[in-house]
């Protein structure tokens, strides 16, 4: 996949420092086989959830771990993507027009890019305002925008309000039926792989470096002649767009969306996944998302008081693994190689 015209990004060099992601992706690819072997098709659904959350966590980490922007509106952006697909499908199913203007569609080849763009638009618009703040103020202003999006969708009675909206249309991607469980799972894993690769390159590009520099010392960036706002805005929009895409996948996979997908608690969960997994690596959040989803799914079946062990696991990880789960693998960026993403040192 490496870009031949540009020999200076070496995929093999990057992978030398990031090999565990290959194992993780390979393991993810084997899930359907394992599920079939153990006659437990639920595993595929569970991992579909983990993979979609991973995409969000990776996208969030781009602004969080590299841009220092703790966003609590990623669940809102996710919801924008999800509702875009669901509302278009709704109008297609009901054969009505959106705002009386244009017809809906059950073709994901149209609605997914739209979800991507809508989320990007919302991220960009809110970013113009929120990115003027920083630190905790940024956390809170994104929380505010998230709540506005949340109540916006709650207020849309036509689309089910608080009860949410079922996707009754048969979704398809152009001429392909991708909503079959295993196919859909591989699609999601494919999107995750592409997301990781794209962000891995982004963070090492000139653009990515400016973003990282801005998070360390914005004043100096300005003095160097770089206007930071537009870089942060671009990063936020990209992150939001990918999150919206994940939301679109979610709506197609679940065939159901509801405002609770936009709740700030879920936004907090994404942050937890990213930090838990490790923000020092582009793919670290994948580990966090998988662990999070597995704990959430299996702990409750062991004990009614499942939040207690969950909480203890989280606390222990933060206390003892400073770089998140990637720390277990000894892969926290060492100081002297901290700006190399492990590609070369």
């Amino acid at each position, binding site marked *: 996949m490496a870009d031949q015209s540009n020999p200076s990004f070496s995929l093999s060099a990057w992978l030398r420092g990031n090999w565990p992601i290959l194992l993780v992706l390979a393991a993810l690819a084997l899930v359907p086989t394992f599920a079939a072997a153990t006659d437990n098709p639920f595993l595929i659904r569970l991992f579909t959830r983990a993979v979609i959350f991973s995409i969000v966590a990776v996208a969030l980490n781009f602004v969080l771990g590299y841009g220092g922007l703790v966003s609590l509106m990623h669940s809102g952006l996710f919801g924008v993507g999800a509702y875009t697909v669901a509302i278009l499908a709704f109008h297609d199913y009901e054969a009505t027009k959106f705002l009386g203007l244009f017809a809906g569609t059950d073709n994901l080849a149209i609605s997914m890019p739209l979800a991507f763009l809508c989320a990007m638009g919302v991220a960009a618009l809110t970013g113009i305002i929120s990115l003027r703040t920083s630190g905790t103020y940024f956390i809170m202003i994104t929380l505010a925008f998230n709540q506005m999006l949340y109540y916006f969708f709650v207020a849309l009675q036509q689309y089910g309000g608080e009860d949410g909206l079922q996707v009754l249309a048969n979704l398809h991607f152009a001429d392909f039926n991708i909503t079959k469980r295993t196919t859909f799972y591989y699609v999601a894993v494919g999107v995750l792989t592409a997301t990781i690769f794209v962000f891995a390159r982004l963070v090492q590009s*000139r653009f990515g470096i400016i973003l990282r520099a801005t998070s360390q010392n914005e004043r100096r960036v300005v003095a160097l002649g770089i206007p930071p706002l537009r870089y942060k805005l671009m990063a936020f929009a990209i992150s939001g767009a990918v999150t919206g895409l994940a939301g679109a996948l979610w709506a197609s996979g679940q065939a159901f969306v509801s405002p609770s997908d936009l709740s700030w608690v879920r936004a907090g969960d994404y942050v937890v996944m990213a930090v838990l997994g490790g923000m020092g690596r582009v793919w670290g959040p994948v580990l966090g998302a998988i662990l999070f989803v597995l704990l959430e799914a299996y702990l409750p079946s062991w004990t009614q008081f499942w939040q207690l062990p969950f909480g203890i696991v989280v606390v222990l990880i933060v206390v003892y693994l400073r770089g998140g789960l990637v720390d277990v693998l000894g892969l926290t960026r060492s100081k002297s190689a901290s700006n190399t993403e492990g590609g070369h040192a």
Partner: protein
Amino acid sequence: MTPILSVNNLYKRFSGLVATNDLSLNVMPGETHALIGPNGAGKTTLIAQLQGELAPDSGTISFKGRDITQEPPHRRSQLGMARSFQITSIFPQFTALANVSLAVQAQQGHGFKFWRDAWRDPALNGPAMEALATIGLDHRAQIVAEDLSHGERRQLELAMALAMKPSLLLLDEPMAGMGRQDGQRMTRILSGLKKDYAILIVEHDMDAVFALADRVSVLVAGSMIATGEPQSIRTDAAVKAAYLGHRS
């Protein structure tokens, strides 16, 4: 010859304190202009207004013949103005080399490149290494900036300003925190740069000031009380009393 930088009737007040008081100043191309004055006289405040971080209350600043009073800081840097900070301002988690590369990148002005690996880009690292070498910090290129000693960080600060290849360097106490040896070397480096750059330097190290400056201006309580050749300033009684003391 027209001045590269000209400041006219600049005013800046902080609640109850006039930090810049009807100040006018010219810097000629290729000139090294030193700005001295007691602590709290308003030197850093002036630099911040020139660079655009602070907005003046009134007055104008023009650079290369163009009124930049309203321009944002990044525009001024793009026009060729570079500043080094009195209180070290670097990117603590990047290596020394990466710090300087970023300055090179800013100067080249292609921030929206999303795909190329910038860490391996010789177009960035080459000039960056050069700037580090000029300052004498090349042997520490791969050290993360927060692990550098105070003096080394000061050197890095300067290397970043140089890497921007500016036409006007605003240096706020570049010698502060540098050891004697390094300070002297810095003086040599700066005098080597003199031909290519116009420099406005704020410095309390009088050896450096008198070795470098073509002209010296003295700022007291926000007002310019004297401007002139180094020699005439050194012997000015008012300046001695307000600033230099007896030893110098």
